[in-house]
Every structure is written in structure tokens, then in C-alpha cells.
């Protein structure tokens, strides 16, 4: 298996081992969103909306983005830790290459994201029996969630670059992440133009319309999670929203790599 000897893959394997051996990390990444999901389910779950779905059928998309968005913090902690432990410098004295370090980190974070999404799917759709249109739609929803997750990794790298140590990266990323999640209306939906400036809004809205309504790429997006009386269609179709998420992802990853390189190469 030659591919397994690829340096980026070896770094990814090492990162995954590292993650899986921190129970606090596992709890924070998986336990925390699961806890929130159960809590929100019992608070809002049973009540039906005028459209026939339960509130939580709609709310779950926000929970997914919340869980995945934690990747921002995970990546920030991971990169800040690597830099502060001196391992990044040590890797620089080996024929590793920064390209492989970034690629390895991206692979391991993506693997973990997949794991997170699968756990959330099992929790929401299998255990709590939430509604989804079909498996194909769910798969597209999965891809959107992944894309958003990768943008969170990029944001995490930017935060790690600007933080002096792991503790600062942890606190800073938590603040940024919680602000983004709340302003996007992912946890508590609200109507405001500000939501359009946050990546989680677009990811959550696309995911919701794909998995609940089975909307196509040309359908327009709604202004909020609870597609009820107050929600309006906005003049941006799902494909436009996808481009916005893709744009955020590209910019965050690109900026993350550039800033991290600048701050760690002397």
C-alpha cells in the first residue's frame, strides 16, 4: 500500500491518533453536539409547524452546522498545539514540506468531520427519527456539511496563526465560532440581513432545503430556518449559496495557509 507511505497520509494518520487519544477532544467534538441535540429535541421536538414538520426537523440542520463548526476550534487548537510544542519546527528540519503538513491536517480534519457528521446523522435520523426527504438528498446534505466543515478548518488555521498559544487559540476560536453560529441563526433562528454575512447560514439553509424539501439547485433559498410565515424567499438560488460556501472555504483555507506560513517561517 504505497499510498499509506505518502507523507501527507502519514501525517493525517498521526493526527487522527492524536485526536482519538484525547477524550476531552472527543467529548467536545461529539458529546457536546449530541447533548445539545437531545436538549433541543426535548425542548422543541414534538411541536409541529404549520407545514407539518416538527420544529426540530428544521432545527436539526442548525445542530449539524453547530457540530461541524466546532471544527474551527479543533483545527485552531491542533495547529496552535503543533506550533507551540515545537513539532512544527522539528518537522521543518525534515524532508516533510509544509505542503504535506497542511494536506495531512486537512485530511485528518476531514476524516474527523465525516465521523462527526455520521454520528450526528445516526443520532438525528436513526435514533430520534427526524424527517429527511431521501438518501440521495441526505448525501448531498452530507457534502454541503463537509464543505462547510472545511471552511471551518480554514478559519481555525487563521485563528491559530494569530494566537500566541493553545489556550488563546481555544478561547479565541470559541468566541468567533459562537458569534458566527448565533449570528447565522443556526441555533436560534432570527430574521436579519446580518445572517447573510455568516458562512453557517448558507450551509445550514442549503442543507435544510436539500434534505427536508428535496429542493434542486435552481430553487431559491429562504431567509430563515423556520420556513414559516415570516420567512421569505431571497433572490439567491441554492447553487448561488453553494458558490458562497465554496468561496468562503477557498478564502479561509487560502488565507489560513498564507497567514500561518507567514507567522511560522522566520
Amino acid at each position, binding site marked *: 500500500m504505497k499510498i499509506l507511505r505518502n507523507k501527507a497520509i502519514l501525517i493525517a494518520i498521526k493526527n487522527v491518533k*492524536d485526536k482519538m487519544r484525547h477524550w476531552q477532544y472527543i467529548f467536545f467534538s461529539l458529546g457536546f453536539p449530541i447533548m445539545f441535540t437531545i436538549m433541543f429535541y426535548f425542548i422543541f421536538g414534538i411541536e409541529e409547524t404549520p407545514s407539518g414538520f416538527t420544529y426540530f426537523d428544521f432545527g436539526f440542520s442548525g445542530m449539524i452546522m453547530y457540530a461541524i463548526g466546532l471544527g474551527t476550534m479543533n483545527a485552531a487548537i491542533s495547529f496552535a498545539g503543533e506550533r507551540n*510544542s515545537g513539532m512544527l*519546527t522539528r518537522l*521543518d528540519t*525534515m*524532508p*516533510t514540506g509544509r505542503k504535506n503538513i497542511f494536506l495531512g491536517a486537512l485530511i485528518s480534519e476531514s476524516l474527523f468531520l465525516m465521523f462527526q457528521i455520521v454520528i450526528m446523522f445516526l443520532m438525528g435520523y436513526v435514533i430520534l427519527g427526524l424527517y429527511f426527504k431521501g438518501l440521495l438528498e441526505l448525501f448531498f446534505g452530507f457534502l454541503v456539511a463537509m464543505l462547510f466543515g472545511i471552511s471551518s478548518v480554514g478559519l481555525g488555521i487563521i485563528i491559530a496563526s494569530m494566537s500566541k498559544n493553545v489556550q488563546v487559540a481555544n478561547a479565541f476560536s470559541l468566541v468567533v465560532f459562537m458569534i458566527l453560529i448565533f449570528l447565522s441563526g443556526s441555533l436560534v433562528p432570527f430574521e436579519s440581513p446580518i445572517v447573510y454575512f455568516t458562512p453557517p447560514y448558507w450551509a445550514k439553509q442549503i442543507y435544510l432545503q436539500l434534505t427536508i424539501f428535496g429542493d434542486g439547485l435552481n430553487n431559491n433559498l429562504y431567509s430563515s430556518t423556520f420556513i414559516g410565515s415570516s420567512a421569505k424567499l431571497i433572490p439567491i438560488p441554492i447553487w448561488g449559496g453553494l458558490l458562497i460556501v465554496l468561496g468562503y472555504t477557498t478564502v479561509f483555507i487560502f488565507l489560513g495557509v498564507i497567514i500561518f506560513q507567514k507567522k511560522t517561517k522566520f
Partner: protein
Amino acid sequence: MSSDDNSVIIEIKNLKKHFKEVNAVDGISLNIRKGELFSILGPNGAGKTTLTRMLTTILTPTSGDATIKGFSILKNKDDIVRIIGVCPQDITIYDILRAEENVEFVASMHGMSKKDAREKTKKILGEFGIAGRKDWSKHFSGGMQRRLNLAMALVFEPEILFLDEPTAGLDPQARRLVWDFIGDLKRKDTTIILMTHDMVEAELLSDRIAIIDQGKIIAQGTPTELKEMYGSDNVLEISFFEQEHLELVKEKIAKISFITHWKEIDKDGNKSLLISFYGGLKNLISIIQQGFTGSIDNVEDLKFRQNSLEDVFLNLTGRRLRD
């Protein structure tokens, strides 16, 4: 030795690194030969780590250049990292990984096959006495972590090895183990650059030594050459209650023929005199008789010892290596 000498493997040319107002490395030029163990000896903050970081391509010099096996540290970083092993001063390991996972990971980064990486890892961990440990490295003692730190630099058998204070914090037994291992590497023709402030280590292991202080090389040579150049067989270190007493003794000993050097040392306002001289006990008694006649009560403390690299440093700078 000229730069085109075939045996030169590292050539440092007027290397400088300035951080704002601090000249951490201030125009160092050196040639290091293939297969030699070259020590850079200096106190903390002398510029040893900065020099290592530049030579290992982590840090870009402010000016100057160095070549390692003909590769420039400015232009050929990728070629250099393939042939060097680096053991950093701070323990730099993945503490959540096991010892063999850490070492195998480094071996893999150097392109070793899985089988080779596993075999070499097993061998080196056995030699360092940490084979068979299945717990995570964070549970190791400080000494074991330091040995692991070193094992990670050696697993791929580099041609050139940079060791930055490799025995700092080790107990005497572990220190001896590391010294033996370095000795073995030397016999295998590995070029070793040892950064240390431990004069015993430098004297015991080195073929040649450069003494560095405030970013500059202040002396270089073999341990014997250095001791001959900046000292004699023995050293007498005397501290006085009053400065005037020191001056008095200086005048008296000026004419003694077997005294080769003397130097005033000032530490926290207390002056002492370092006297290097040839010969043994007979000459010591002679110095005391001639230099301290009627004034022995003015002597606060008197130390007699064999000349060491510490004394060379004292003679050169007026400070101790550990000051």
C-alpha cells in the same frame, strides 16, 4: 584550512542574525570537517541555538551564508533537510504517541520503508533503554523523554547531526549513555555539531571546539590547544576582601616566570584573580609564598584546580560559562 578542502562538510561564512537590537549571531565564520565532532561551547544566550536554527534552515540569516555538503542554507533547504538530523534543545516529541510511534513517524518522514522504519526504531529504542514501553510518551520521565528526543534525530542515521544541549537535564547514568552513543556515531564517521555549555561534555567528546560569546567566536581549536593557548597546567583562583589587596598581589606575582596568564574576574562587584601556571604543588607553594607574604589574611577564598575549558572561558571573557 581552505574552503575548497575536500574534507570540509560545513562552511559558515560571516553568518549574522539580528533580532531588533540584539545581535544574536554576529558574523560567525567556521569550517567543520567531515566526520569530526565539533562543539560550539558557550553560555546560555551566547547564540548557539540561533546558529543551529540557521544551519538547520529553520531561521533565515540576516546576512552571510553557510553551505552544508555544498548546499546553501539560503538556496537549498530541501537538500539540506535530507542529510541532517536535528536534536533540539527542548524536548520535542508527540507526547500522546508512544515512543516507537514517535520514532517511526520521523523515520517515515525521511522516506524509510515501513519495514526499515520499524527495524531501526526497535534497534535505537533498545540502545536507549526505552524499548518495550507501550504507554504514551507524556508518561515518561524527563530523562526518558530526552532520550526519545535524541532517538528521533538518529533513527535515519543522518550524515550530519546537530545536537543542541542533548544531555541537559539528564541524570549522570543517562548522560553517560548518551555520550557513549555519540562516541559510537563518531566512529561511524557521522559529522556531529554539538551545542553545549557543558565543558566536561565538550572536552570529553570534541575533536575541535569553538567558544562562542555574545554571538561571536572568541576562540577555537582542539581542547588541548585551547587550554594551552589560554591557560597552563593548573589554575589558582583567589578572591579578596578588598580590591587593593588584589592589586598588591598582582604586582608581586608579575615577576613569577611559571605564571602564564592572570585575569581579574568580576562577579556582582566581587573581584577575584585567576592565575594560570605551569608545574604542580611546588610552584603553587611558591606563588603563595611570593604573592601573599604577610597578606594571607586578606584572602577570602582560594581554589586550586587543573586547567579546564571553564578556565579558558574565564580567561577569555572574565565570566564563567554558567554566569
